[in-house]
């Protein structure tokens, strides 16, 4: 799991260091992207990936609302969305073949590209599309109003998102055909300020864009009359989503090579037919008995779209051809419904509101079934000018639930969506500019770090974008180390990068930077020895002892405990480790305070000796009691002079001394539909200790390996308030549960070797008028905007709820800045600064258009966790349902101009009800299904602690079909080909007995084998002769030398490499014990205690129309 990308240490290998000296190397900021995990964040810098206005994915709406079933033989159910795995995944080397021929025409320059709109506004229908009815009236209907807006017809903007992901690829051989974008150089024709102050000094600096509804300022090449304001707003959106032609960065693959497009275009139809037919067959439902998840009956809403399509073509094929039309005309988003005269209500509305951007396209959720995009949902792009957007922070690091900030709190209240930020501040980055400077330029008033979104009034003065104070530019800042020129402060790396790291001078230290100190607190009671974790731990630490982050000052120490506390004297000069037993657990003391924490380099042999002998030392122990509280106190005493990291391994309920806990779980209540008790801590001992730890810069990481109830709700506090992390391995046993053992091993390896920051604080600043409401995550809040993080690790995510205190009337953009000050394991004080800039809007529909459904879901999950602890679980569940009801009904009442039946949602929120339902069925919040209290609490911790990308997988798992993997649209990373199957809906109807399906639920993966699974798959991938021969407990894909096996393993390991924890894989059959776990994740289906997706939608509709 730990790939090269993961191991990047504290930025030393991660970026170019700039100093002020003139002798610095002027290497460009961007370094070639790393491999493995690192590649993943790259696309984020690519605005194309996250564009809002383009089609989310060409195939998304393709098969439309419960399409009429044509007499086609193999479709017994709703037709599956057409399989286009290659549409949205990064095409490596090969260009996606469906790219419209138009976009292949490389204009020699921006002007020329701009000049082509007439031709593209009404594109000549490609040959294939003649079979489809989409080229008919709807085409001009939706495209016509935008004709004049030049950006819309821009091929780059129009191209489907497949161009986006080219992260890990080396730049293509050909130079990027910049002209394709047709965008003006930033600076040559800056978007207008309204009106720009005469003294504004902005050479080449992005101007703050006009408000989204401002009249167009005539982007270069705009011909004819200015489009209406609505359209203009879109055009800016489109502008921001396209790559500027001058962007020098090479981090993205140049996948838009025109030659390739032209070459591959003609073959498209064939390949599509092929894929689609196959997928249509694949999704063919099993025997009727297996349709657990079918909608009870075809509801009325579904029936009104049953008019036969004018074309007798196979629906999948129709859908497949649709991208051809959608390519050049991004707004022609019509679902595969009938012709214009039979438009469904939502589409009828759409034709009338043809000016709405894609994010606001009205979707009737009751009618459109296939809403799930075939690939992971990208983050929406804020509606900013391209110059600003280009500089903006990566959405993987910094994401806002509303990419358009409402002007007032009342507008926010009206939208009924939570406003907040989701952060992953210490994420491993493969390229990170590092600046060494004796003075770090900050605002004198609010202490904001200088960032790309400040404005330079003239060469010597800059205006803070958070408090609007005018500051002087220090002399030192005038010199630009990158270009080695003087007098261009706006070109400094600090002003060119939204994510940057400073090496902090001594003003930022309260004390000399602490060394890396690691203390391991190990449970060695009988129960712990039984599980056998000790030998795994010792072996892992032995293997990675040289990879522990640190320098020559690194210290380690060990404490073991059962009913007594054992210390280990590892002082240099001893021939072997000396064990010191303290049995007075009521009044704990350190027997030899100086020699318990020892320098790792000096005493490595003793440490290794100890690790080798530890597993045997307690082999015969009969001690069953556990005095965890005293051990923690002892460890705290040991670490408090320096600070550092305490790793606690616990296997049972602490039952002796301080902090002893009682079992509070009633196993009979696990499945109760009533309220769940005991989600809050039983004692505040652990919380108080955590706060003490936090004050002494000690973080506690908890590894809980237990089959029984351990009261994680109480124990977890020790990590939660000391900014540690919690790992939980239920039913860990070295023999009975090999999957957990492997997970533990891999997690430990990552844990021991990952980057770490000590004595950290994180401050989040935002533009005047906004204020921070609540923080979510593991930390202690020291001040309204300051988090105390004794340790910070690259896998921690944070969420922040915001509120609007003062109206943002006169602002066009607001900014957020997260600054993380930490001591690296090498003893350097560093500051990592992320800045994000978002537009301010005044209309409710714009607020909805900017909603980021995943971020909203993530933040709601955090809020619901808080609610279930402070109030009750049912309260939290109601609150989540109400969140969906309120926002959709507010959308219906305020943002929709035309009322129509059905459950209507803007396209950007179309997945909202699904995600809310997924949350209700998530382990943390579900009722009625048997859930252990500890597992529930752990799920809650995960929702709060995991960065959004991983939390989303835990909320809404991804389902892939594995038995027909192909290399089409596959990724190429390090010469490995990684197939990219499309993400299926979580419904049993998508399963078939002939197939094999992989469900990726974040912490765990299930590979479900159908009863009649193809023989080929069984033998080539699993290496067994028949279905019956699949072993009951299989957690490993055999390494067979077949193409199918390689593909499957490549996919699984690629999925694993993307996350910092190790998901165990379970291969399950119909009879397996784990099958219920697999089926519980089928979110769209009905279970005994929970609604199906369709029933949930009906419930929402009922509540909304009340």
């Amino acid at each position, binding site marked *: 799991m730990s790939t090269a990308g993961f191991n990047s240490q504290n930025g030393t290998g991660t970026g170019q260091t700039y100093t002020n000296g003139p002798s610095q190397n002027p290497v460009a900021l961007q370094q070639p992207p790393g491999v493995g995990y690192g590649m993943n964040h790259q696309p984020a810098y690519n605005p194309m990936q996250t564009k809002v206005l383009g089609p989310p994915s060409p195939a998304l709406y393709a098969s439309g609302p419960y399409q009429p079933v044509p007499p086609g033989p193999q479709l017994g159910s709703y037709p599956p969305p057409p399989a286009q795995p290659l549409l949205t995944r990064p095409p490596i080397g090969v260009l996606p073949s469906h790219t419209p021929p138009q976009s292949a025409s490389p204009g020699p320059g921006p002007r020329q590209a701009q000049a082509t709109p007439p031709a593209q506004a009404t594109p000549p229908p490609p040959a294939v599309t003649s079979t489809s009815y989409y080229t008919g009236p709807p085409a001009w209907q939706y495209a016509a109003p935008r004709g004049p807006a030049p950006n819309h017809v821009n091929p780059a903007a129009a191209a489907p998102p497949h161009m986006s992901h080219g992260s890990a690829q080396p730049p293509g051989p050909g130079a990027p055909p910049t002209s394709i974008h047709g965008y003006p150089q930033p600076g040559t024709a800056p978007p207008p300020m309204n009106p720009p102050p005469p003294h504004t000094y902005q050479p080449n600096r992005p101007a703050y864009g006009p408000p989204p509804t401002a009249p167009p300022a005539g982007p270069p090449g705009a011909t004819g009359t200015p489009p209406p304001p609505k359209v203009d707003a879109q055009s800016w959106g489109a502008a921001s989503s396209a790559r500027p032609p001058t962007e020098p960065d090479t981090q993205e693959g140049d996948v838009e090579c025109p030659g390739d497009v032209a070459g591959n275009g003609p073959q498209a139809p064939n390949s599509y037919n092929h894929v689609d037919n196959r997928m249509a067959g694949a999704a063919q439902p099993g025997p009727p008995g297996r349709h657990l998840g079918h909608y009870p009956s075809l509801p009325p809403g579904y029936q009104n779209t049953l008019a036969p399509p004018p074309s007798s073509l196979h629906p999948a094929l129709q859908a497949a051809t649709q991208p051809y039309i959608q390519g050049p005309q991004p707004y022609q988003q019509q679902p595969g419904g009938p012709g214009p005269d039979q438009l469904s209500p939502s589409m009828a509305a759409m034709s009338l509101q043809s000016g709405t951007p894609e994010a606001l396209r009205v979707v009737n959720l009751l009618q459109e079934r296939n809403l799930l995009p075939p690939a992971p949902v990208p983050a929406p792009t804020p509606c900013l000018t391209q110059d600003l957007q280009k500089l903006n922070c990566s959405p993987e690091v910094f994401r806002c639930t509303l990419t358009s900030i409402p002007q007032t709190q009342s507008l926010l209240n009206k939208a009924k969506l939570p406003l907040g930020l989701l952060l992953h501040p210490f994420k491993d980055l493969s390229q990170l500019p590092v600046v060494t400077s004796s003075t770090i330029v900050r605002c004198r008033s609010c202490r904001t770090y200088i960032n790309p979104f400040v404005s330079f009034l003239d060469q010597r003065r800059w205006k803070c974008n958070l408090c609007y104070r005018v500051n002087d530019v220090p002399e030192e800042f005038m010199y630009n180390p990158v270009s080695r020129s003087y007098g261009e402060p706006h070109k400094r790396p600090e002003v060119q990068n939204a994510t940057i790291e400073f090496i902090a001078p001594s003003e930022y230290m309260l004390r000399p930077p602490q060394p890396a100190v690691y203390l391991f607190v190990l449970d060695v009671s009988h129960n712990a020895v039984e599980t056998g974790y000790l030998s795994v731990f010792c072996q892992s630490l032995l293997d990675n002892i040289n990879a522990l982050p640190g320098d020559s000052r690194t210290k380690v120490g060990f404490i073991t405990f059962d009913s007594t506390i054992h210390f280990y004297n590892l002082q240099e000069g001893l021939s072997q480790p000396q064990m010191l037993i303290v049995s007075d657990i009521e009044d704990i003391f350190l027997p030899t305070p100086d020699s318990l924490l020892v320098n790792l380099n000096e005493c490595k042999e003793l440490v290794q000796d100890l690790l080798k002998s530890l597993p045997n030392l307690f082999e015969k122990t009969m001690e069953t009691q556990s005095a965890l509280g005293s051990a923690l106190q002892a460890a705290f005493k040991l670490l408090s002079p320096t600070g550092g990291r305490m790793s606690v391994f616990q296997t049972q309920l602490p039952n002796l001394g301080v902090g002893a806990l009682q079992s509070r779980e009633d196993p009979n209540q696990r499945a109760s539909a009533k309220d769940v008790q005991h989600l809050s801590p*039983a004692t505040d001992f652990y919380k108080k200790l955590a706060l003490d730890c936090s004050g002494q810069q000690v973080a506690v990481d908890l590894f809980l390996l237990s089959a029984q109830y351990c009261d994680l709700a109480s124990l977890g506090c020790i990590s939660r308030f000391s900014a540690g992390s919690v790992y939980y391995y239920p039913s860990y046993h070295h023999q009975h549960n090999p999957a957990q053992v492997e997970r533990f091993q891999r997690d430990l390896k990552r844990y021991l070797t990952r980057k770490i920051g000590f004595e950290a604080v994180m401050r989040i600043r935002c533009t005047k008028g906004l204020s921070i409401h609540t923080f979510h995550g593991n930390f202690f*809040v020291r001040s309204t905007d300051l988090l105390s993080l004794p340790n910070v690790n690259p896998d921690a995510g944070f969420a922040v709820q915001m509120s609007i205190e003062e109206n943002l009337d006169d602002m066009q953009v607001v900014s957020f800045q997260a600054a993380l000050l930490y001591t690296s394991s090498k003893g350097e004080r560093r500051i990592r600064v992320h800045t994000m800039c978002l537009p301010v809007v005044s209309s409710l529909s714009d607020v909805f258009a900017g909603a980021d459904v995943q971020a909203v879901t993530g933040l709601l999950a955090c809020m619901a966790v808080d609610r279930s602890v402070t109030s009750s679980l049912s309260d939290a569940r109601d609150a989540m349902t109400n969140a969906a009801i309120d926002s959709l009904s507010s959308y219906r009442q305020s943002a929709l101009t035309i009322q129509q039946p059905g459950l209507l949602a803007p396209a950007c929120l179309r997945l909202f009800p699904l995600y809310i339902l997924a949350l209700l069925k998530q382990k943390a919040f579900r009722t009625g299904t048997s859930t252990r209290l500890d597992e529930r609490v752990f799920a809650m911790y995960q929702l709060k602690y995991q960065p959004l990308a991983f939390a989303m997988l835990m909320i809404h798992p991804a389902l892939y079909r594995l038995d027909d993997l192909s290399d089409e649209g596959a990724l190429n990373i390090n010469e490995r080909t990684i197939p990219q199957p499309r993400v299926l809906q979580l419904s049993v109807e998508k399963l078939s007995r002939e197939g094999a399906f992989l469900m990726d639920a974040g912490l765990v993966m299930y590979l479900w084998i159908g009863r009649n699974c193809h023989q080929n798959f069984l033998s080539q991938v699993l290496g067994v002769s028949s279905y019956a021969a699949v072993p009951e407990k299989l957690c490993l894909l055999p390494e067979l030398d077949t193409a199918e096996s390689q593909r499957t393993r490549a996919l699984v390991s690629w999925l694993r490499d993307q996350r910092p924890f190790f998901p165990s894989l379970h291969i399950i059959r119909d009879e397996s014990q784990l099958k219920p776990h697999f089926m519980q994740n089928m979110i769209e289906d009905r279970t005994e205690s929970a609604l199906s997706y369709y029933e949930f939608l009906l419930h929402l509709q009922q509540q909304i129309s009340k």
Partner: protein
Amino acid sequence: MAFTFAAFCYMLALLLTAALIFFAIWHIIAFDELKTDYKNPIDQCNTLNPTIEKVKKIKRVKIAIKLVLPEYLIHFFFCVMFLCAAEWLTLVLNLPLLAYHVWRYTSRPVMSCPGLYDPTTIMNADILAYCQKEGWCKLAFYLLSFFYYLYGMIYVLVSS
């Protein structure tokens, strides 16, 4: 005009309410400082060493948090006194606050020591706003009851 037990109760309540008003003001200041901690750091930093200022502030907040239980006890104490003096109207006027105090203390977070505020959740904007509002409401209530006790004391002294 005789000095009755009721008159003594009113006099005592008068003095104690003055103390409670002081507590309430302290409470408001402390929470306001918690909230506006970051708002304008430069002004604070210009005049005084920030760390000293910070320590003072933290002390103020800590004292305010410690004052909660005495406040409740004082209020409970003169409620009991009024009960003994059979001043029913005054008692009824004070009962809602007494009930509120009981509810507030029973619904406090899990804590092993006396106290009301959990340092880990106090910075939550909702809780902070609630505590501030609570402080203002109490201040108003104590002020009003101060004058009521004054009136009550004179009335009892005059009428008896």
